[in-house]
Structures are given as structure tokens and as C-alpha cells.
């Protein structure tokens, strides 16, 4: 009879055991904020379909101090989400080869972040001119 008795350790609370996992859980959770803001925009779309009064009511709600505070928080969280998204990006892509050399992870992350900043600024400029 074998005297083996392998001991299996519990996985309970695994994500608290390593700072890397804690960070992973935080950045995964920020996805909820992305989803929540998509919901806010969806509500706007629905209100637009309901006529001018409804649309203006929605715009007024956005201008309330609570909403502004809420937007500041969301901006910070989603900026962090964007940052972590591009940090992970190099491990999700096949090697990108330019001029016979593989593009390094730093370049991919940096390029992604730069693109996000540029797109955000362009959007901001467009919106500012319309208003």
C-alpha cells in the first residue's frame, strides 16, 4: 500500500496572497466602470429617442454636481483601465516584426497609450467646437 498522501492547499482568498494578483483584481474590476459608463451613454440614447424634453432632462442631469463628481471618478478609473489594458497588450499579440526586428513590449504599450491620448484629445477638440 502506498503511503502517499498528497496535500492540496486551499485556493480560498488566493488573490489576496500576492500584490500582483491584487493589482490584477483591481484592473479587472475597473472593467465594471467601463460597462457602467456605457450604460450611462445608452440611457442618453434612449432619452434622445423619447423626444427633446427627455433629452434636455438627461443633459441637465449630467450637469448636476453629483454627476460631475461621478464623471471625475470615472475618468480616473477608466484612465487606469486604459493604462493596464495597454500594459497587458504585448502578451496578447503575435510578434510584430518591422524591418526584421521584433517590436518590444515597451514600444507596444507606449504606442497604445500614445494612441489613446491622441484619440482622446481629438475627441475633446471635436466636442468643444460643437458646443
Amino acid at each position, binding site marked *: 500500500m*502506498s*503511503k*502517499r*498522501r498528497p496535500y492540496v492547499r486551499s485556493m480560498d482568498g488566493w488573490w489576496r496572497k500576492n500584490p500582483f494578483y491584487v493589482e490584477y483584481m483591481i484592473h479587472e474590476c475597473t472593467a465594471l466602470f467601463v460597462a457602467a459608463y456605457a450604460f450611462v451613454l445608452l440611457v442618453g440614447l434612449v432619452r434622445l429617442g423619447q423626444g427633446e424634453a427627455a433629452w434636455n432632462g438627461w443633459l441637465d442631469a449630467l450637469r448636476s454636481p453629483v454627476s460631475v463628481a461621478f464623471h471625475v471618478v470615472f475618468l480616473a478609473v477608466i484612465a487606469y483601465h486604459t493604462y493596464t489594458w495597454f500594459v497587458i497588450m504585448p502578451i496578447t499579440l503575435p510578434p510584430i516584426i518591422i524591418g526584421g526586428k521584433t517590436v518590444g513590449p515597451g514600444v507596444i504599450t507606449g504606442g497604445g497609450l500614445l494612441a489613446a491620448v491622441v484619440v482622446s484629445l481629438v475627441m475633446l477638440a471635436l466636442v468643444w467646437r460643437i458646443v
Partner: protein
Amino acid sequence: MEIFKADVVIVGGGGAGLRAAIAVAESDPALKIALVSKVYPMRSHTVAAEGGAAGVKKPSDSFDYHFHDTVGGGDWLCEQDVVEYFVEQAPVELTQLEHWGCPWSRTEDGHVNVRAFGGMKIERTWFAADKSGFHILHTLFQTSIKYPSIKRFDEHFCVDLLEEDGRCQGVVVIEMGTGEFSMIEAASVIIATGGAGRVFRESTLGGIVTGDGMALAYRHGVALRDMEFVQYHPTCMPVTGLLFTEACRGEGGFLVNKDGYRYLQDYGLGPLPDKPKNKYMELGPRDRLSQAFFFEQQKGRTIEHPTLGSVVHLDLRHLGEAHLRERLPLIYEMAETFMGLDPAKDPIPVRPGVHYTMGGIKVDGNCAASLPGLYAIGECSSVGIHGANRLGSNSLTELLVFGKVAGVAAAKNARSAAPGNSASLLKQAQAIEQRVMALKTRTGGTERIAGIRKEMAQTMEDGCGIYRMQDTMQATCDKLAELRERFKNISIDDKSSVWNTDWLTAIELDYQLDVAQSMAHSAINRKESRGAHQRLDGYELRDDVAFLKHSEAYYVAGGAPRIVLGDVKITKSQPAARAYGAAGEKADQERKESNV
């Protein structure tokens, strides 16, 4: 006791064992193969080989050149017919490995590339960066998975061979995870357990390199041949002994003493050429380079380091970071991690360390030992290609060429052998189990395993180092006899069954003491200097009249081994002066002229 019936059992899952297993499987898929290894095969010490594997590749090279480099490098103690076969098969086997997926480094046009190595006239070392052994081992292990007839016994420890009717007919193993014994019956037994360098103190070797298979065959009356020839690799990390591959020099690295002087030019390896030149300076053979270190130390020209001891510098700085990262990535990382150095900016302190056992289980050109049914391959064997000094990069090729030879021979033998008497084999196996269990269960011992091991390693270094003297060798022989006695009083802390490495380490130490004795007694008996066996007590010269002979050590229970001298097979290369550098070139020229 569990019983497993195989046709061929292979002990050792390194490069040689895996190559043999594949050869058996390919030669006859109906044969059952048991592959026993005390570690998962990819942990085997083949993994640590760095530089590469030799095989003729360039149009400017020839089998004849490889033959002469090998025989001259071995100081004419090689079996020349075996070397002839070896050099011819080398490129075939290396190509086979390429077909199996080995990531050999390539030239720009997509062909396999070759690099320079010590003692080789033409570049012929196939390499996979500086992880050649690692890639060879993993390629073989992964390829072996393709063959359903190979049943692996991973983390199984072999404790004895079964011998019946004058034939070897199987092995007894311990499953390390449970501590339980099994008997594996087989008409052919191949030993591929690697070297025994851990009997020394400062070595390049992994903890598993304990000469198990050598001791097993030896105890069954098979000779251990040429055991006095132990290779010191000239460029090892001080204290730990970790290896800085010869490829460092193949790529153009220098060895310098405390004055920044390339001292090898004072030891028959010069004069200093303008650019790296094969068989000159740093591209000389390992025995000569390690011996040169010894004399530099005697002259007080080594660097005295406060914690590392006496060292010389391996200087790679002129090769540049990009080249080093591409060709020697492992070396680069090791220097950074273990020594806190940047090889592109700092010279690396190195000294010689034990690296390889040229000798081993005496076998013929078919890898068959004197005990019918028993075969041996790789570092544990002495098939006769290394002689008194192995050339770097011949041993990885040896695993492949002779792994295949042994596999084919063992398969043939298994097909024709008469079936064994299982009942009487089992009885034998049970007696072996009792004996091995007694070592664990006995109480009252006072000798610690580590204590005896340390004393053994120290006395081997003292008596059987780079240079040897009668009185220190005698002291080593006496000390080993004393340790053999004291081993009887060993204490084992761990009495459990599951993963009892305390017990297994004790069994390994028992093997090591036997192998150490065969080395020391073979050494003291050889009253000449040849290859890696160099004396400073009146026997400084090679003596072809008395000692152009193999040493064969035979086991004597409870006593010192019996050493006899055996003949050396010479076909086309008569012993001559062994010269390198300009002197070597001149000798080559003279040989050529006399042959015309």
C-alpha cells in the same frame, strides 16, 4: 513487489538513454522498453552541456581530421576502430537530431552553423547557442513521447542488477514517491547513468552525477576502464564550479593571468597568432589548459581573490555585448546572476574544475559489456573514443551515436534471448530489497552522510587532482578505505517511505565510494603521465612501452580493486608526440609527408 516485464530496460534518461530508447522503439515497435530515471528525464545532466556536438560539416573538413584530432587529443589511448565508426556516424546522428527539431544555430542562408572548439583542427561543433545539451536533451525527451512502446519509470532509483545464468536479466528499482520496490525483467539492460564527477569537491556537475550505473556494473564483475582519467575543465566558476563553456574560447575569448598576459603561450600552445587559430592558445585541449593553470599558480602569477581563491581571468570583453548575447546567452546570464559581473565590461574569474570522467564501464564497439545482456553508453561507459583526455564536444555526439548502437544491439539481443526464470529472479529481487531496506531501518549509526561525502571529495581532490604524486595518491587510497569502513556506521535521519532522499543519498554515497576507489587505485597504478593523468614524482613522461594500455579496475568485495592492464586497439594512428600550436602544426606536416 511489483513486477514489470520488458524486453529492454534502460537505466538513465539523459541524452544517451533517450537516444537508445528511441533506437529500440524504431528498430522493433513490438519490443517493450522500460526507461528508468531517478529524475524526470529533462533534469538529467545532459541538460547542462553548453558548447555543442562535434561532427564533420564543412567541405574543408574530413573524417580523417576528426579521427586524428580525437585520437591525438586522447593521447593515443583511444580504441581507434571505434573512433573511426564514431566520426563517420557523427554527422548522420546530428542531422537526425535536426530532423527531430533540435534548434541548432544557423548561418544566414539557413544551414546549420558550426563553431571552433579546443583541440579541433576545423570548426565542426554544431551548437544551439550555449545551451546545446539542454536543447539536445529536450528534443530527445519530447521525441521519445512519440513512441508508445517506451514506458517511463520517472523518479525511480535503481538499486541493483539481476544476474542469472551468467546473463544480466533486469533491475530492481525504488519508486521514489512511495519508497516501494519493483522488479523490471528484461533480456537486455542498458546502463546510461552518466558520470561520477561528484566524488570530487569543486565540479561543474549536478547533484545527481554520482556514478550509480558504474558502481552497479562494477559490483557485478564488469571492469571499470581508464578511471584515472578525470577531466578538469579549465574555465569554471570558483567555489561552485559552475561551467563557463569552452565555446567562450571558441568564440574568441582569452585567458589571462594577473599581469593581463595570455599565459598559454608559455605552455606549448603558442606563439600568439594574429587571430584565433584552431589548436592554438585558448583553442588547445582541456588537459593542457588546466595544467597550465596549475603552473601559473605555482609561479604566483594567478590572481589571488579574497573569497574566490586563486583564479585567472576569462576575458570576453572584446567580443562585444551583442555577439555575447547571441552566441553565449547562458554564460552572460550566469555571470550576471551568480557573480554580479557584466562579461561585456568585466573579465570573469575562473579556475579549473572537475567536469568529466573519461573512463567508465568497459564495453566493446557494440556497447556490450563482458556480462552478457548488459550494455553501457555515454559518460558511464568506456567505449574507447576519449582515451586519456576527451575533446570538448565529442561527448554529446557520443550519446547519440552510441545510444543508437546500443539500442539496436540490445533490441537484437532481446529478440533472440531465452526467457528468464521469473521465480528465481523474484527471489533475488526480494533479497536485494531486504538488503537495501536494512540500510534504512538500522539504528544507532553515528556517521553523517554529508561528513563522509565531504571527506571523500576532499581526499579525491588532494590525491587525484590535475597533478598527482605517489604519496598523496596513497593517502587517498587509504582514506577511501577508511571511509568505506566508516560508511558501515552511517546514520539515516529519515525512516519514512515517501520521498526518502536521505536514504537514497546514502545509497548514492555507497556507489560513489566504490567509483572513487576505482579512480584512485587506477591512478596510483599508472606510472607515467598521459592526457589528464599527470604526475610530478619521476613519471612526468608518457611511457608507451609499459603504459600504452588501458587500466581495468575489478571490484573486490571489502577490499581494494584489482587493477589489470588491457590492450589498446590501434588502426591507423601510431603514437606520436602530442603537440599543439606551432609545434603541432609542424608535427602534422611531418606526419603527412611520411605518409606520402
